[in-house]
């Protein structure tokens, strides 16, 4: 732990400092070594190429869609716990506890193989226009993953709502802001501000939770790579490739959140 620096006015100096150049050089050397010393022939197989592209695309949209739906649910859930009346707070709490307390894999499994296999035995569902949708696997994946985000982020939002200094809300109330406006304009932005780093991390976690959907036949990138590995028994190369894909996606997420964070004041009074 170094000495704390005075914050707030550090200017963005040149990206290329000497140590950065060394780090980049090492990274480049590693990548080159991987490219030339390992066996990448499987990547040339057109069958795998299409599978990989499809897989990456599925991973991306599942992450985004479930994250968005989940956050939209998480905000009221967090709020209900932080400031809601008991008849909202208690169910929200129970929901978060159950979701966070049990493995996502098992939730997914119960939803798809449990609930999902009940539907076909109910004739009117089978007859309805919804059946083609309910027959697919991805709706279950989206529901399960979104609920999972809602559960985890609901908890995070609860802490964030509670952490906003008292005076900030008093100022809003004193000026006659309706409760919802105060929530939308003051409470929520400040709460989000405090948890942006956390939510950034949770988004990455969500990205890495998507492999679970392969267990209900949604073939995202992890499943595709798993399949390639089992087809060919090549051990590390597909894994390295997978790591690279996730790293790129994570990089995008990190950049996105950094951009969000950059738009906020650094210091809280």
């Amino acid at each position, binding site marked *: 732990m170094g000495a704390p620096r005075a914050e*707030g006015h550090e200017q963005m100096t040149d990206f290329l400092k000497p140590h950065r150049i060394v780090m980049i050089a090492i990274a480049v050397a590693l990548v080159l070594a991987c490219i030339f010393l390992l066996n990448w022939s499987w990547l040339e197989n057109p069958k795998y190429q299409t599978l990989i592209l499809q897989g990456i695309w599925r991973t991306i949209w599942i992450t985004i869609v479930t994250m968005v739906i989940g956050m939209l649910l998480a905000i009221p859930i967090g709020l209900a716990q932080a400031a809601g009346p008991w008849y909202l707070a208690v169910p929200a709490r129970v929901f978060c506890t159950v979701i966070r307390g049990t493995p996502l894999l098992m939730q997914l499994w119960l939803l798809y193989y449990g609930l999902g296999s009940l539907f076909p035995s109910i004739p009117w569902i089978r007859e309805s226009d919804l059946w083609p949708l309910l027959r697919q696997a991805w709706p279950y994946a989206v529901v399960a993953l979104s609920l999972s985000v809602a559960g985890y982020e609901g908890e995070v939002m609860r802490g964030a709502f509670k952490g906003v*200094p008292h*005076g*900030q809300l*008093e*100022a*809003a*109330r*004193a*000026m*006659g*802001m*309706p*409760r919802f*406006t105060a929530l939308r*304009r*003051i409470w929520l*932005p*400040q709460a989000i*501000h405090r948890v942006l780093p956390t939510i950034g991390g949770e988004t990455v976690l969500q990205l890495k939770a998507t492999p679970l959907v392969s267990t209900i036949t949604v073939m995202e990138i992890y499943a595709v790579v798993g399949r390639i590995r089992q087809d060919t028994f090549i051990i590390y190369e597909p894994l390295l490739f997978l790591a690279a894909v996730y790293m790129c996606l994570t990089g995008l997420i990190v950049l996105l959140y950094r951009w969000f964070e950059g738009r*906020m*004041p650094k*210091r*809280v*009074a």
Partner: protein
Amino acid sequence: MTVTAREGKASGPRPERIRIENLHKSFGEIEVLKGVSLTACEGDVVAVIGGSGSGKSTMLRCINFLETPTSGKIIIGGEEIRMRPDGSPADRRQIEHARQHLGMVFQSFNLWSHMTILQNLIEVPVHVLKVPKDQAVAIAERLLDRVGLLAKKDAYPAYLSGGQQQRAAIARALAIEPRAMLFDEPTSALDPELVGEVLSVIRDLAAEGRTMILVTHEMKFAREVSNHVMYLYNGLVEEQGPPEQVFGAPRSERLQKFLKSLG
């Protein structure tokens, strides 16, 4: 000093703006307010003075229900705020509406830390009162100019000096063009020059017919700005009256002692 102007306004019947009757407030065991009453009419400037911890801020905060009174009545603009038995407002709408016409400047400023100064000022006009944005910006900039902060309009509160934050807080309260204002030590972080400026702002507002209740520790300021002074001691009104009387001929011994200190 424009004593005559204020005295002139004090006479004649003017509509009542803020009235509190027999206000009590306890925090747990401690009774902070023990029955305070006050009436402020249009154009009135009431200065509340008193020792630290005597309940001045609490009284101000009760007026717009930031604290729920333990008992007592609060009447704003002739309308009594309906309370539940526990003192919380029974009708959220009513209290929100009342607050929109009650500007408040906090002792600790409470500027919104995630917004620039300008954004702080236009927040309520634009999002609550539905003033068109450019109009709100124009008003806000005029106010900022008046308190000498126009250059800082795009700075975040955490990067301002204490006095600048206080001026921004005053400007924010003014930006909603309230009918009545509650000031909690509005000049505590200001130098004499700025105190003079705030004084003139308050006088202008009073001349426009607005009502003001202000808590202050600066007796000179209280004397110059108010037409009614209230001395709070230990949660009770120990003495009140026109400033000439309260400062010039205090009857209560405690008030005499209070005013005597620091020569």
